[in-house]
């Protein structure tokens, strides 16, 4: 176990050295915070505050909009200045509340009080995780309580805590593992108890030896826990690939990890969930790696949800002259931003600023069929044929060539010598195929 490999994958230049040795620093409260109401995958949360409202730190400002949804909490105490549409870091413009901190940073009553998790039953734990707005913090922001509620009949036997962090540049999870090993393991133990599995694996890529060492020491006393050092290859952290590399189980196309009895959670999620249960502390801050050659002083920052990228950049010494691209998340799967007005959400694992010469520029030359993308694709698709079909608007053909199984990891575009915008093509095709499927029912 552990030495397994998945198909395809690439070896990008990781550039993790920029920030992987700088300890997490807490950022002072900025002058204003922009808190998006929709911060999870699934149904958007419904705002419950209006302009002029006074809120306390940890107070709910948006309630869950359904089962697959979580509440959003105020990141500090202050006044709701306005509610409007802001550029959300995930690639759309979305409604958000602008919060002006009053500087007191007072907790809402009942929040952040230490208590014992003894005696809580599974339902109560899930409720606490839901109420504190815990979502997957690797970037997908899928509500954690949903992941912990498998449909009846699904038997799980393994919990994987994903510390692979295969995205280049990002070091948030790395620092978290080095500095908060115990907290992560507490959270993991909680998850294991909720879904009733005895085996917990912490999967870490080998390029983080200090994290592996710290975690190995931390799991020493815990029953059923182990640390696996994974090969350094992108996308090692993608759920399906990680599970295959660990267990040789193949998650069926279109299926979920639970179909093969595995549950995967990010290290950040584990830590947040553990704290939520132990202290009743809502998810209002997270570690964000602000890095890249376009930033003066790369840092790992503990930032409030709602911190504008502008403030993060300022805290890190500002932009270098020819910074050309600002990415929410890592450079492989992150979303390029057009403005620093966007703000940290629960899924913001990093802010990568790249200089002009590092930025991949797509030019859409003809595919020369070199087949490098076929070798790189971890889902074993034929990106070459797919992109040609999509270029000619032949979405049915693209569907036949399984475009819906694309995980948008970006390996194909990374290796394409013609600089074709592969992932962009596939996202387009997925939208079209979904439209077609809806039409035909």
């Amino acid at each position, binding site marked *: 176990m552990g030495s397994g490999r998945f198909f395809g994958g690439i070896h990008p230049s990781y550039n993790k050295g920029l920030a992987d040795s700088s300890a997490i620093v807490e950022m002072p409260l900025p002058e204003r915070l922009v808190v998006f109401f929709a911060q999870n995958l699934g149904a958007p949360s419904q705002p419950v505050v209006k302009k002029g409202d006074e809120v306390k730190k940890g107070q709910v400002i948006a309630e869950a909009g359904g089962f697959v949804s979580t509440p959003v909490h105020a990141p500090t105490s202050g006044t709701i200045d306005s509610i409007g549409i802001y550029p959300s870091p995930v690639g759309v413009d979305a409604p958000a509340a602008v919060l002006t901190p009053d500087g007191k940073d007072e907790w809402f009553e009942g929040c952040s009080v230490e208590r014992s998790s003894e005696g809580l039953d599974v339902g109560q734990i899930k409720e606490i995780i839901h109420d504190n707005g815990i979502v997957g913090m690797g970037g997908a922001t899928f509500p954690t309580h949903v992941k912990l509620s498998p449909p009846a009949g699904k038997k799980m036997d393994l919990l994987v805590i994903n510390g692979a962090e295969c995205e280049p540049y990002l070091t948030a999870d790395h620092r978290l593992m080095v500095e908060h090993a115990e907290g992560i393991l507490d959270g993991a133990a909680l998850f294991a108890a909720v879904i009733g599995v005895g085996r917990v694996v912490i999967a870490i890529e080998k390029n983080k030896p200090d994290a592996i060492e710290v975690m190995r020491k931390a799991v020493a006393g815990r029953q059923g826990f182990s640390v696996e050092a994974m090969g350094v290859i992108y996308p090692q952290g993608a759920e399906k690939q990680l599970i295959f590399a660990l267990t040789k189980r193949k998650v069926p196309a279109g299926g979920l990890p639970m179909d093969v009895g595995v549950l995967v959670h990010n290290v950040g999620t584990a830590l947040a969930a553990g704290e939520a249960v132990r202290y009743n502390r809502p998810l209002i801050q997270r570690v964000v790696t602000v890095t890249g050659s376009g930033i003066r002083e790369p840092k790992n920052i503990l930032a409030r949800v709602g911190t504008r990228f502008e403030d993060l950049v300022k805290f890190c010494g500002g932009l270098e002259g020819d910074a050309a691209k600002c990415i929410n998340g890592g450079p492989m799967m992150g979303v390029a931003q057009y403005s620093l007005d966007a703000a940290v959400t629960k899924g913001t694992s990093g802010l990568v600023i790249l200089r002009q010469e590092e930025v991949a520029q797509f030019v859409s030359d003809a595919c020369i069929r070199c087949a490098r993308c076929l070798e790189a694709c*971890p889902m074993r698709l034929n990106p070459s044929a797919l992109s040609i079909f999509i270029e000619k608007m032949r979405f049915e053909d693209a569907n036949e060539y399984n475009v819906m199984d694309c995980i948008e990891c970006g390996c194909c575009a990374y290796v394409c010598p013609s600089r074709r915008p592969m992932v962009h093509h596939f996202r387009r095709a997925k939208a079209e195929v979904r439209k077609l499927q809806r039409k035909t029912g």
Partner: protein
Amino acid sequence: MEDNMEGKTPEEKPAAGVAAEKPAPRPGPMPKKAGVGPRFVVSSSPHVHDGRTVSQIMRLVIIALAPAALYSIYIFGLDALRVLMISIASAMIFEAISQKIMKRPVALRDSSAVLTGLLLAMNLPSTSPWWLIVVGNFFAIVIAKQLYGGLGYNPFNPALVGRVVLLISFPVHMTARWVTASRFGTDAVTTATPLSRMKDSLATLGHIDIAFGRGEIFDLLIGNRAGCLGETSIVLLALGGLFLIWKRVISWRIPVMFIGAVWAMTGIFHLFDPAHYADPSFHVITGGLFIGAIFMATDYVTSPVTKKGILIFGAGCGVITVLIRLWGAYPEGVSFAILLMNATTPLIDRYTKPRVFGAVDTKKAAA
């Protein structure tokens, strides 16, 4: 009905996204000038790239071919240099002219035309008159490549199309005027290539009559024999191939399958009837097998993309080569074999679609 729709859209109205019809390169790369317009460039992920470009790949192939090309000048003298120069120059001129006429950006910098010209020259005898080379390059660049839309779209290997057109249209120039090694043009001797000598002896004597001792093997390996410019030096071609495999430009699959299939098939026949079928090693190191297997069959554009498909492609090339060499009218079958397999590439790709990760289970679930 479907046919109708398929046919009409592309013919009458170019689909959106076709490079040629862009009014201006608006959403292209970010301008170099700073401070004009918006600050950030926004695109879909991923935002980094491994840096390899098409022209880089082409240059690597040219570098890999260079030793064999230089060696051909050493063997065949300045005549070889003349052939090389004319071929490369005419390829580039044809490329530039046709791209101008088609109102496309002239993309000589991607070096693909240079490579085509070089490959075609390597496939010509050193005695080729200049017009032969120009005609060959016209077919290679204009007919086989640019008419289809240029690099990336040609279904047949351009250099091979050029060679085969010449072979069929001007057989005398292409097959009868061989000279052997002359070391810079001194005492050139007109002889036949080893493969055509074999074929002739089979026809006249009823059995093959080729000497195959250690000396001959050595001569064949270093290219001390009659043949096209680039096909003679097996050692240098093989080194070029290893260089390309090491640089991860080509995979080992096509050359190994191609040469392996030739060796295996001729070997079987040799075992049964050595009087009529030559030694497999003779077949492997004569003719254009190495340059074909390493530099022509591995052409990205005209070979399959799937792993399984590549294996089939390589083996198919080998089998057809042997068919033509042993029983066909032409002494050498490598070019025809590759062209024929080029034609099967779309079908091979279609029927060797890789199975998606985890696909087995979906089929079960759907059933």
